[in-house]
């Protein structure tokens, strides 16, 4: 029996990692695990914080109801109502999804823990894809909620353009979100907390040029040029064809997809450059103080 004065032996250190474990196992295993880290963190945060519930239900619900009522007040035809509500859904889905991508960096900005993330052997793909996957999930929930409200309150058929069209439209929305989310991360790593508001502002600006509630043909020439460079313009156009509107572009889906791929690659490169700059200027450390 041990005497009261006897000190408990110290707890053992965790077992050492072997070379395979130290490298994260196989390449694929390490890629999946690192990506899942960001996805899981976003899921935990979404479950635990009340403002995430607002993002997911309150604002999309309010947007659908207020815009639907506006179409009633203006006595719009079902076809024109569809035009407006497609824009409403697009804005909400893109907003929610791109915020998730931006949170991959914003959570660390708000908690001043930025340096720990960039001290680990991760790439931009891990944080971007991990956070984006959760954003896609939340975007689909938003779409579902708005579909229910739209059908129930305004007899708007969200599947009217066909399931395949809905899928392509949502894919376009989510690719735009990935691009915008990476852009927000880039701005934050270039300008620090001053650029935080871009997480909420940037998507509205893009939607304005993409023809959220109107055809881009009504925009002035210079703005139409900007519209033509935004992938979502083409996805909105293609989806609205399903509701009987004429397409303003040739091959809108292909053009939208091609532009998305180019912009996502550019956004990835821009974020990599912003991280390198933040390492050079010391901003990475300042954001952790």
């Amino acid at each position, binding site marked *: 029996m041990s005497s009261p004065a006897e000190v408990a032996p110290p707890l053992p250190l965790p077992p050492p990692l072997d070379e395979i474990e130290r490298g994260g196992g196989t390449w694929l295993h390490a890629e999946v695990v690192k990506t899942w*880290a960001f996805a899981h963190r976003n899921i935990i945060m979404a479950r635990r914080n009340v403002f995430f519930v607002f993002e997911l239900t309150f604002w999309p619900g309010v947007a659908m109801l207020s815009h639907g009522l506006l179409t009633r007040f203006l006595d719009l035809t079902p076809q024109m109502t569809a035009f407006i509500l497609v824009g409403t859904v697009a804005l909400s889905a893109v907003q929610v999804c791109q915020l998730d991508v931006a949170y991959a960096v914003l959570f660390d900005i708000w908690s001043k*823990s930025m340096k720990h993330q960039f001290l680990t052997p991760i790439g931009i793909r891990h944080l971007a894809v991990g956070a984006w996957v959760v954003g896609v999930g939340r975007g689909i929930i938003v779409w579902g909620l708005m579909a229910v409200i739209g059908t129930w309150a305004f007899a708007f058929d969200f599947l009217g353009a066909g399931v395949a069209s809905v899928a392509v439209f949502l894919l376009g929305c989510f690719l735009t979100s990935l691009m915008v989310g990476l852009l927000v991360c880039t701005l934050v790593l270039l300008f620090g907390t001053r650029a935080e508001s871009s997480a909420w502002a940037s998507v509205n600006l893009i939607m304005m040029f993409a023809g959220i509630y109107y055809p881009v043909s009504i925009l002035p020439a210079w703005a139409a040029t900007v519209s033509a460079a935004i992938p979502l313009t083409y996805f909105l156009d293609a989806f609205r064809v399903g509701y009987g509107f004429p397409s303003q572009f040739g091959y809108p889906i292909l053009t939208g997809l091609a532009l998305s791929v180019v912009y996502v690659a550019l956004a990835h490169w821009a974020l990599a450059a912003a991280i390198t700059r933040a390492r050079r200027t010391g901003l990475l450390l300042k954001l952790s103080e």
Partner: protein
Amino acid sequence: MLAVEAHDLAKTFHSGWLGRRHTTALQGASLAVPRGAIFGLLGPNGAGKTTLLSILATLLLPDRGYARILGLDVVTDAMAVRQRLNMASGNASFVWSLRPAEVLTFYGRLYGLGGRALALRVDALIDLCELREHRRTEYNELSTGLKQRLALAKALLNDPEVLFLDEPTLGLDPDVSIRLREQVARLRRERGTTIILTTHYMREADLLCDEIAFIKGGRILAQAPPDVLKRQIRIGEVIALRLDPAAPAGLAELPGVLEVRLRGPELDCTVDVAEKRLPELLRWLHDQGVVIRDCQVREPELEEVFVELAR
């Protein structure tokens, strides 16, 4: 083999509009740390300690010079370096809404650890750093001491070969500091981890470190084992006396006496060579009619070396 090797590192920060304000943090810092050593980096505030550590940890790019960790360049081989090092800071912060196990799981995954292996490792670290009772507490509700223990646990996730500890006991209660130091010593003893430590606490550096570098104004002023430094700096030895009555005037004028510090009946007399000066000092005090109640000769504290170098 060297665990850390830095040569002529320089870093200047630019701020303000168009980067018009310049702050030079490092100007040609070099150091070499052998594998398995506990290495202390000491210096006053703004000396460049954290900047140097951040460059070595791949968080900051140097303007000039190079650094290698375990033979890998911190700029060109940064990804491989990150896999093999980790860092804990005294002022570390993690995502506020996450609980300790969630914080560890998140960062563990960023090192590619997953599944049961990660779960066991997180569990072991929670126990090692005495966080079991606080498993369900969100980070922002943890005390400073618990946050620092969590920072240490996070720093051990990837079983790092090189560990940077930036002021790890800053603001901790003495008993927590002692336990944390014990863990640091164990890491080296049981794992052979190379540890680079910055601290303001001289006693901590004296207790833990095999070697110490003093940094000031972005330059390494001296690098050696603590005992060697104390001798190298030649700030003398201290003869501590308790006298009755208190020391008379004129003591400071005696040959070989560098400094006299009086605290009531107690006296710290710094001399060039204690062996030579002690008999002379005792004789002089006796001649003055002073009774010597106690007498000790001691080496200078590391703090005194630091003060001397920081001048």
